[in-house]
């Protein structure tokens, strides 16, 4: 008898979603779906608002990575106010925004690795769920938990110093930034008392990479063999091929590493990318037009960025990048659990970048804003913690927004997450009539590797726990488990 399994709600990710798994009469998994069940509608209700409100308004999509939305919107509006397409800002404007962004990457990645992902690594996928959380981590490995909390705090304080607030600041404005870094802030970030200084953050970030590599060497089956499947990858890269999380050209590679989108200007993204709507999810399915709906899907995020970039321009992260590449024989890694590795390398890179910027006096003085010939349309892209984030605005002759399109990082990862769920479901649930806690968490671990922010992706609000239900072929519920009650 065929079955349908529903996992709702998903836990330790941001947002709210459910998974359904359909099992045929022979007990084999024949279809899986990650449903995103939230709806919010920012793209609609921002219409009519003055365009300069967008960076402050749209960032309310998210409380984890508002800076990414704030900056992507500001970058789109830079185009509208004639400040260029990402390279025309004043040195102060550009560097303050970059510092804000690296602070954001640092805190968001720390949150994900230490708070959300590390419990799976420390305790195992099939461990007692009451321990599998940050409190469990704190009890089992106090130093690791403290590092996670303090690294996040440092990133948040960088954001506060550049945007005015830790969450939902106002620093970036069309054409630049509204403040300099204070000398007091610079001093405390560089020479502050341990642990909250940049050198210590770099040291802890290195330790975190080492922690993962050590874990990897002891758990190769989990890290290398968990739900791997071939994918294309997309990200921004600097024009010279370096990883650049703030600005660059759009590059995509296929599963073998061949470039299939050749470093194009993202102002023209609509020439290359489209979005498909499916009637069972509020989250759209973007794809590369050239390869069609079926084959044009791609993955974004830390793993994609390490796969597409040719090098990293900071020494410690570059060393780790080389090891990562070498481990994968110079080919793209298709292992979702390698996203954790990539994320930790990015934490290290962000810390190094922050140090470089903190020592730059352009942050302390100089012109804040530049404007030029006005336009009525602009696109802003940024590498948010979870991947490439698209903001696209059109304004009318009265400066009111008349069109807004957001393709959020997690939306870009919609199809890959569905693929990952399918891989795990086939492995864990074929010929099973009962759902165990371990099976349910295995599905969640696959989703969690993408660090999805489902609230952002549907521009929606709420918690995101996961529930699994098992249905037969006649849609009769035969088993149900909820990981958050």
């Amino acid at each position: 008898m065929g079955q349908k399994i529903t996992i709702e709600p998903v836990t330790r990710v941001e947002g709210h979603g459910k998974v359904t798994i359909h099992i045929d009469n022979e007990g084999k998994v024949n279809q899986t779906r990650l449903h995103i069940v939230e709806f919010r509608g920012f793209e609609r209700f921002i219409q009519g608002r003055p365009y300069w409100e967008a960076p402050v308004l749209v960032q309310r999509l998210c409380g984890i990575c508002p800076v990414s939305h704030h900056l992507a919107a500001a970058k789109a509006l830079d185009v509208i106010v004639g400040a260029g397409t990402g390279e025309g800002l004043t040195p102060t404007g550009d560097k303050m925004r970059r510092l804000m962004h690296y602070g954001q990457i640092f805190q968001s990645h720390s949150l994900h690795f230490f708070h959300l992902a590390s419990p799976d690594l420390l305790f195992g996928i099939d461990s007692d769920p009451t321990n599998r959380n940050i409190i469990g981590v704190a009890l089992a490995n106090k130093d690791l938990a403290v590092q996670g909390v303090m690294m996040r705090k440092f990133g948040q304080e960088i954001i506060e110093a550049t945007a005015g607030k830790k969450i939902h600041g106002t620093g970036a404005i069309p054409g630049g930034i509204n403040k300099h870094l204070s000398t007091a802030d610079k001093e405390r970030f560089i020479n502050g008392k341990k642990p909250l200084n940049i050198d210590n953050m770099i040291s802890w970030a290195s330790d975190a990479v080492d922690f993962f590599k050590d874990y990897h060497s002891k758990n190769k089956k989990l890290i290398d063999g968990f739900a791997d499947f071939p994918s294309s990858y997309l990200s921004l890269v600097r024009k010279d091929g370096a990883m650049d999380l703030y600005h660059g050209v759009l590059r995509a590679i296929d599963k073998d590493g061949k470039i299939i989108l050749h470093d194009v200007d993202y102002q023209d993204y609509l020439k290359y990318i489209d979005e498909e709507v499916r009637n069972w999810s509020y989250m759209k399915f973007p794809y590369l037009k050239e390869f069609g709906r079926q084959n044009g899907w791609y993955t974004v995020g830390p793993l994609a960025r390490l796969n597409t970039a040719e090098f990293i321009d900071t020494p410690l992260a570059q060393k780790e990048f080389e090891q990562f590449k070498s481990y994968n024989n110079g080919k793209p890694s298709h292992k979702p659990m390698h996203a954790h590795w990539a994320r930790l390398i990015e934490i290290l890179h962000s810390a190094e970048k922050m140090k470089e910027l903190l020592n730059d006096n352009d942050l302390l003085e100089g012109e804040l804003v530049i404007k030029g010939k006005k336009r009525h349309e602009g696109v802003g892209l940024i590498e948010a913690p979870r991947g490439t984030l698209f903001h696209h605005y059109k304004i009318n002759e009265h400066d009111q927004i008349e069109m807004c399109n957001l393709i959020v990082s997690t939306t870009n990862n919609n199809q890959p997450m569905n693929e990952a769920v399918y891989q795990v479901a086939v492995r864990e649930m074929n010929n099973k009539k009962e759902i165990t806690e371990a099976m349910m968490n295995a599905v969640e671990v696959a989703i969690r590797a993408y660090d999805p922010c489902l609230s952002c992706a549907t521009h929606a609000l709420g918690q995101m726990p996961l529930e699994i239900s098992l249905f037969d072929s006649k849609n009769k519920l035969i088993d149900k488990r909820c990981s958050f009650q």
Partner: protein
Amino acid sequence: MNQIIRFTIDGTECMAAKGQYLVDAARENGIFIPTLCNYPGIKPKGSCRVCTVKVNGRLMTACTTPVAESMVIENLCPEIENLRKQIIELFFVEGNHFCPACEKSGQCELQALAYRYKIMAPRYPFAFPQREVDASNPKLIKDQNRCILCKRCIRGIHDEKGRTIFAYKRRSNRVEIGIDPKLGKELSDETAQKAMDICPVGALLVREKGFDIPIGERKYDKTPIGHDIEHHKIPTP
């Protein structure tokens, strides 16, 4: 020389020049009485009622009541404070005030008073009225969602010939601020900025100049509304 008179506010002996409006006399004695429709240099109107006090037992608006000898004024009694809080709550539910994305946030008198009165959530249901953003003026954007109809722009903004630029239009609960189409087109940058500054909320915005004051440097970031008056050292005679 102005005649000095004596009166009390909440039992505190105060002195002021005869004929001064109560709200100004209180300020000179280091006592804050909240206002919204009142603005220095503009003839008081008494329309918002936020400055309501008890004068010799009767409810009066402090912005329009001249102080008189031996007046007994109640300002901080629970009845008055609750009344003010309710008025502020009503302003919030009557319009569409979304502080998180408003560029007047941190400089908005309505928001500042809501913080002062610790309004976490209004007691009244939100009306969520359908109101428009008028962006047709070349210098200003008017967001009727945020307007509290205090008339400060009508009373305080004039062109160089003294003509009023703003006026009420429509009636009853559809009343809104209108900008004179002809005079509005000739607004100088300076007058447009003055209109934005005189507006106690974020209903009038200078075009293309949003969020340029960083968080931490906005008017009420460091000094909550009223604190400058209450903490001002009054020289002892």
